[in-house]
């Protein structure tokens, strides 16, 4: 391994933190979902790091399955956004108050 696995894990944690910040702080719903993608990528990074550390291809296979689930999430999530935009133009989550009481 080129760098110790701890370095990869540190990078992964930093990227996950950035993604969590983006998800919690942004108000545009598309950018919130993109922040989730950043978090998923951070987790894939740590899976690949463990895979290289333990010399075991199973980590890479798990990361592949994560990518497949991310693709499914994008398809459903963006479909929902288009449907939502038809009823109420705009992408601000603060405007979505129909279920609030």
């Amino acid at each position, binding site marked *: 391994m*080129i760098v110790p696995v701890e370095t990869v894990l540190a990078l992964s944690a930093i990227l996950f*933190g950035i993604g969590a910040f983006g998800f*919690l702080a942004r*108000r545009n719903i598309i950018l919130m979902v993109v922040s989730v993608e950043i978090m998923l990528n951070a987790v894939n990074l740590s899976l*690949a790091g463990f895979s290289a550390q333990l010399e075991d291809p199973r980590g890479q296979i798990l990361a592949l399955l994560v990518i497949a689930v991310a693709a499914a999430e994008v398809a459903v999530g*963006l479909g929902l956004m288009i449907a939502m935009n038809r009823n109420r133009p705009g992408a601000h989550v603060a405007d979505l108050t129909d279920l609030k009481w």
Partner: protein
Amino acid sequence: MTAAEATFYYMAAAGVASALLAVTRKNPVHSMLWVLALFMHIAGIFLLLGAEFLAAVQVIVYAGAILIFYLFVLMLLDLPDEEAGPRFSTHWPLAAAVGMSFAALAWLARVQGTGAAELARSERSAGLPAVGPAQGSVAEIGVALFGPFALPFEIAGIVLLAAIIGSVVVARKQQAGA
């Protein structure tokens, strides 16, 4: 520091910088382009970690398909007043605290280590067989995907099929009275 190490640290620094820019830019299209830069750098790190197939999938699926889909929807929705309002919600310092706590986790990972190396070494010294031989060979991944991991692989396919049908059902126009 070897050239490979320097490349890793460049990729890491550029990845963190583009992720930060992605979550802070006001224009959503600029954010998307910074996420694209982040995905490309993560693909480079996958290559350095010996995960060639994962790097290819990262470029083809993430950068090539998912991000372009995001850009399509972003431009389809047409958000002209996006840059007028504040980009962060009022509780953004709390969100920043959550993000910083993950950075603290990174510091812990660096300082304390994970014990993964010791674990691998003790497994090998205990006479357990090494789980996989050649790291990063694409053939190895393929054999594993169609051998012991065939069922999860097929389930992932079914999940994707369900997502395709679900997104069509959710996004199509409702017929009146239907």
